[in-house]
């Protein structure tokens, strides 16, 4: 029966090729917009998650300062209690779930070699920083393992920093000036790109003791803790806060897990995608109205045919089915075309601009088709009911 209805509907649609094509294109434009926007939004979300997990989802950061103020970023400005290297050592002694506990101090310095000088972000840390941030060496060694408070005058260069300070030269063993300090280059990081907004290729890394003396700071920028498995994150955070609260006599540190940051970003992006898709879906409503209009015309044109079918014994339900299937086919066809166009567009976009993160999630394919059918059904019901309600005698007598 359904197949019969479909072949009947197909014949009717094929009989009016142009108007069928226009209605299909209308639905297709809407579906393509929804698919493409979903792909862009989902791509962006995946990209952000990937960015964060690249640094390690098992990582948590401890920042000095704590505020009840919503939104304000802890770590701005000064704090009454510093996050010190002694705090770091205390954490290392007491937290056993942690794989690495790494201090980070940060500043900006003029780094120069001969005539070449640049203002560069300087990171002070320890040898475990390499593993904690999952960095790779291109050449030489990372910072040596040594007493955290000892400041040896050695430096590791980021990929771009090395290229710019030593164009065409071997940087290993050379001496650079970092601020007032003369330091020996012992290694160069492999290219990695931007991580969390910090261009890791454009930094220099020094031992944390050296860094703190260099910036004349008593507080660390933050302490990174890498745990063995994600399920340890929350417990470790609580432990860190307990230990530091005891040491500082008050709770004045903030502990952030990657998980929390990821889920915040993820939900922001999801909302954004949803809003964009909703705006795009307005066009689907318009396309639905178009389908309804065409179906109304079709019903009016085929009044005589409907009368005949009814005279031949078709029930109201049969007539309803005929026109509903026609509307559904119109919308479904539009859905398929729109899906292809949307996916093709996304494909083309990523091919043209590989930097744009865009990927249609698998569910979007089903959802797009379902959405098209829902539109067809919703806007097809009214015309189909109108057809079903026609009085067969009146319908035959028309004309």
């Amino acid at each position: 029966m359904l197949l019969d209805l479909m072949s009947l509907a197909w014949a009717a649609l094929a009989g009016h090729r142009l108007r069928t094509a226009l209605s299909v294109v209308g639905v297709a434009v809407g579906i393509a917009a929804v698919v493409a926007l979903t792909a862009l939004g989902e791509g962006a979300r995946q990209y952000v998650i990937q960015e964060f997990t690249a640094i390690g989802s098992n990582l948590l950061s401890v920042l000095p300062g704590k505020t009840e103020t919503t939104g304000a970023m802890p770590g701005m400005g000064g704090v009454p209690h510093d996050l010190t290297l002694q705090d770091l050592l205390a954490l290392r002694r007491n937290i056993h779930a942690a794989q690495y506990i790494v201090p980070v101090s940060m500043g900006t310095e003029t780094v120069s070699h001969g005539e070449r000088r640049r203002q560069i972000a300087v990171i002070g840390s320890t040898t475990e920083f390499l593993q904690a941030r999952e960095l790779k060496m291109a050449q030489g060694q990372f910072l040596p393992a040594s007493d955290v408070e000892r400041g040896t005058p050695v430096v590791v260069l980021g990929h771009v920093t090395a290229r710019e300070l030593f164009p065409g030269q071997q940087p290993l063993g050379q001496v650079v000036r970092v601020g007032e300090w003369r330091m020996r280059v012992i290694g160069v990081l492999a290219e990695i790109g931007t991580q969390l907004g910090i261009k890791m290729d454009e930094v220099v890394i020094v031992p944390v003791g050296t860094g703190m003396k260099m910036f004349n700071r008593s507080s660390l920028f933050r302490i990174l803790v890498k745990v063995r498995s994600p399920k340890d994150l929350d417990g470790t955070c609580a432990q860190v806060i307990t230990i530091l609260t005891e040491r500082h006599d008050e709770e004045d540190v903030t502990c952030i897990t990657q998980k929390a940051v990821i889920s915040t970003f993820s939900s922001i992006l999801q909302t954004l995608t949803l809003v964009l898709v909703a705006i795009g879906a307005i066009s689907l409503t318009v396309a639905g109205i178009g389908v309804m209009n065409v179906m109304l015309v079709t019903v009016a044109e085929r009044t005589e045919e409907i009368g005949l079918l009814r005279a031949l014994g078709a029930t109201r339900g049969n007539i309803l089915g005929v026109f509903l299937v026609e509307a559904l086919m119109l919308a479904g066809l539009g859905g398929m075309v729109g899906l292809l166009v949307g996916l093709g567009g996304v494909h083309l976009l990523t091919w043209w601009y590989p930097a744009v993160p865009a990927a249609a999630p698998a569910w979007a394919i089903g959802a797009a088709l379902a959405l098209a059918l829902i539109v067809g059904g919703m806007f097809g019901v009214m015309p189909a009911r109108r057809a079903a309600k026609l009085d067969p005698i009146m319908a035959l007598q028309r004309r």
Partner: protein
Amino acid sequence: MTVMDLIQFAGGAVWAHRLRSILSLIGIAIGVGAVILLTAIGEGTRYFVLAQFTQFGTNILAINPGKTQTLGIPGILGGTTHKLTLEDAVALSRIPGVEAVVPMAMGMGRVETEGRGRSVNVFGVTADMPEVWRFTIGQGEFLPIGDWDRATAVTVLGPKMKHELFGDQNPLGEIIRIAGYRFRVIGVMEPKGQILGFDLDDAVYVPVANAMRMFNLDELMEIDVTYQSAQMVERVLEAVRRILIDRHHGTEDFSITTQAAMLESLDEIMRIVTLAAAGIAGISLVVGALGIVTMMWISVGERVSEIGLLRAMGAQPRQIFLIFIVESVLLSVLGGALGVFLGLVGALALTWLLPGLPIFVNEQYLMLGLLVAIGTGLLSGVAPARRAIRINPVEALHAE
């Protein structure tokens, strides 16, 4: 055939098929309405954001330590070769044309009264702060005028902070502890709201010297400079740069942001976002246009014999073409007008439902919406009208 005749004739045809005409024009109306509503929200947000920034005045520039290129946001990381110091700020206040200079250091500290305490932002500033940041004092007075490097244990509370610590009681003269130091409350600010995530009402203000001491800071986070008139911006900017480079032994290790430049780039970003949203909504206009094309095409098909008659009566192909174009434009203009109405009603409903949402309806966008609708109608009418003039009158008259 006058324009009036055309409209009358086309109007008759539109009216004869009311239901389908209404459905076709609703398609356009939804598109135009969506575009208007989204641009209204976009414009509203733009003005809201701009107002947020201009509330600090426009003739202001901010100096932060560190060059911006490497890390995006200056000042967060500190630890530059040469600190931005109170002496730098004093030097800047001598530049001709400069009205006021506020050195600022901030930190986070626990603020306590007996029994109550919270960790908030502590801003170290000077007496000129209310003038420079356009703040008003609600109660009491602001920090006293005096040497910037002299610490005085007095504080002014943000209104939210005052409410949290004292409720409805009078805080003036009370002693509170900030990061362990005792301060006497001498004033309360008027509410100012949040900016970029900083709740300026949930904060305390102390003399900059006190803040630097209590947070163990040896540099400022920011120096804000106001100047007398917008025309001076270049001259003041240059003077600031020259003096600081000079004081920092020849290195430009600070960054200067003028309010004007910041406003400009913000404005630009907001415009692009608004345009993008409107563009996405505009897709529905395209779909609406397709609907009109479809209906007009069907209409031409139904009126073949009418077209033949008109031709037999001596109507020129040009006139037939115009009849259908006018019909299409009529549909889209009615749709556009309905869309403008829907957009306005939607904007009104939104301001009523979500009073916090900034909405601004720009008349230019209303006109633009109507113009776009007219253009849509013109374009949608072309193909059906061309079909109409290609109809052979002899065949049309025999088609029954």
